[in-house]
């Protein structure tokens, strides 16, 4: 600009230079406007026009009562599609969409007053449609030769980009705040090398850190985890990439918890880390649940293996003892059903213990056709799952025998089961009456062995099985560990 000023040639032409607008002003038909032809312009108008044409700042002069518009190249950039029609137009018509605003400007300016607006928003139509435009506007009166205000000069600096950027920033900041409030995560900020924790919002799970501290590792981490954590931090810092770890933390209440923590580096234009911003989720409960689940799965796996071994044992014994293959098949199937029934009972009780009465009832149900031919008498107690399973299998064997040879083989017989609990021992009796006369079996089979030796062994008590002429009797006397209801 300085060199351009040196080149000014005052050859009498007006205006001189002034770029595109200088040329347009020289060529304009001013005689058609209220200002009159160029050569008649008063000196004051010429001076101001020349001044604004040489200025790099967007300036517009509004001359006379009509506010005839004379402006420079910088202003034409601001005017967009409205240029060049604006030149020489009356300001209230040239900018028809804001005629009220400009009417006010004209009246104030011609009254000798100045106006100043900062980031003034006006809706202008510069590219075919109305859009908000923000401007810094400074108006001052221009005096004529008689010292009276004859026009208004305006410096128009558009600030739309600045305002919109600021608005976006405020909005983003607001959204960020909402996000951190909406999240239940712990939020933290670390120095570029992680030596210092700048801030941590612990969400009452961890203690808060409100001012920068270099003792954060001893505050939040367990000593034995620090080398491992330091290595992960060093790795993230060295490669300027997100830090991500599942690790233990010292909770606000002093106990040990677990978090899933992830932090991203925030960098400047040169790619240098200025801060780490991180969020950590409390996963203490999730880890506890997972550990419990693993335990349950292991236990379940063991039980399945054990159950398969029981099935194997039942199969071997059944097929070995049976007089025929068909007989064995039927007996094996029935024993599996009994095992499954007992298992149902236990899963229904979540393996925590079962009701003695329902264990008996369920074991008998597949065999008993008429509820009137069973008599149960005893106070219900909760027994351990294993006791329930053993009893169920024994009762299955007794029931099978009753259907084949005993009380349930004819039309009349009755099975009575009664029990009582005395001084931590269970006394239980199975008695069959009304059936055909019983002859002791010539050979003791799997059923007898299961009842006499098996049940006795499992319960740690005595079990006697007698084949009396009146009917089968089975007497159980065993110590019991009763299970308290949940």
């Amino acid at each position, binding site marked *: 600009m300085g060199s351009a000023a040196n080149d000014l040639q005052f050859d009498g032409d007006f205006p001189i230079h002034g770029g595109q607008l200088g040329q347009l002003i020289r060529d304009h038909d001013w005689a058609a406007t209220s200002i009159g032809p160029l050569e008649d312009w008063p000196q004051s108008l010429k001076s101001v026009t020349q001044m604004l044409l040489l200025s790099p700042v967007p300036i517009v002069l509004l001359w006379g009562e009509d506010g005839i518009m004379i402006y420079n190249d910088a202003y034409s950039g601001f005017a967009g599609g409205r240029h060049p029609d604006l030149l020489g137009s009356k300001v209230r018509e040239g900018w028809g969409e804001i005629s009220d605003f400009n009417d006010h400007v004209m009246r104030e300016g011609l009254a000798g007053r100045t106006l100043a607006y900062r980031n003034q928003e006006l809706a202008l139509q510069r590219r075919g449609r109305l859009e908000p435009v923000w401007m810094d506007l400074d108006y001052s009166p221009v005096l004529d030769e008689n010292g009276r205000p004859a026009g208004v000069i305006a410096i128009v600096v558009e600030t739309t980009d600045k305002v919109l950027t600021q608005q976006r920033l405020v909005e983003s900041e607001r959204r960020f705040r909402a996000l951190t409030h909406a999240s239940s995560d712990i939020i933290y900020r670390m120095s570029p090398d992680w030596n210092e924790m700048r801030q941590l919002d612990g969400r009452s799970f961890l203690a808060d850190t409100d001012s920068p501290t270099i003792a954060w590792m001893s505050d939040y981490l367990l000593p034995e985890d620090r080398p491992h954590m330091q290595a992960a931090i060093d790795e993230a810092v060295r490669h300027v990439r997100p830090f991500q770890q599942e690790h233990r933390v010292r909770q606000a209440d002093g106990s040990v918890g677990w978090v899933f923590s992830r932090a991203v580096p925030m960098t400047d234009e040169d790619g240098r880390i200025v801060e780490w911003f991180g969020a950590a989720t409390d996963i203490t409960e999730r880890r506890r649940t997972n550990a419990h689940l693993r335990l349950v799965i*292991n236990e379940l*796996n*063991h*039980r*399945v*293996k*054990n159950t*398969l*071994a*029981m*099935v*194997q*044992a*039942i199969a*071997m*014994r059944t097929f*070995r003892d049976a007089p025929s293959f068909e007989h064995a098949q039927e007996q094996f199937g029935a024993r599996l059903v009994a095992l499954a029934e007992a298992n149902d009972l236990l899963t229904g009780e979540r393996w925590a213990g079962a009701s003695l009465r329902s264990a008996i009832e369920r074991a008998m149900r597949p065999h008993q056709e008429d509820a009137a031919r069973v008599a149960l008498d005893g106070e219900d107690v909760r027994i*351990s799952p*294993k006791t329930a399973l*053993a009893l169920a*299998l024994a009762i299955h064997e007794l029931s099978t025998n009753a259907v084949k040879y005993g009380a349930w083989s004819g039309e009349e017989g009755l099975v009575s089961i009664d029990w009582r609990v005395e001084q931590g021992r269970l006394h239980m009796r199975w008695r069959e009456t009304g059936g055909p006369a019983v002859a002791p079996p010539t050979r003791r089979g*799997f059923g007898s*062995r*299961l009842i006499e*030796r*098996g*049940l006795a*062994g*499992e319960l*740690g008590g005595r079990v006697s099985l007698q084949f009396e002429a009146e009917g089968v009797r089975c007497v159980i006397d065993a110590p019991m560990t009763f299970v308290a209801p949940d």
Partner: protein
Amino acid sequence: MAMRVLIVEDEMTIAFMVEDMLTDLGHDVVEVAMRLPEALEAARGVDIDFAILDVNLDGLRSFPVADILAERAIPFAFATGYGVAGIDEAYRGTPVLAKPFMLDDLRRLVARIVGECRPPHIQ
């Protein structure tokens, strides 16, 4: 050669199967213990050549039984559905039968534990 065997197994059906299998192999099952107290008593007092131990006896571990047997220099093996992971650190070298198992598995196991431990046992 017939061996005198102790079976510790809390599930009666399985206990009888192991008893039958060992009998079929020509051994003499001298005791079947289904609960920890009976198992401890048998381990202390019964004259046996080897033992097969279930690991879980109605929620209780059978390792105290193993301790007594080890002290008496009586060889033994574990039979378990838990696999090797369920075995106490001190008994990691002990033979393990994974349930369910076949007669041949049992035959090989008996040969192994008796073979391994025969010299010190027989003196």
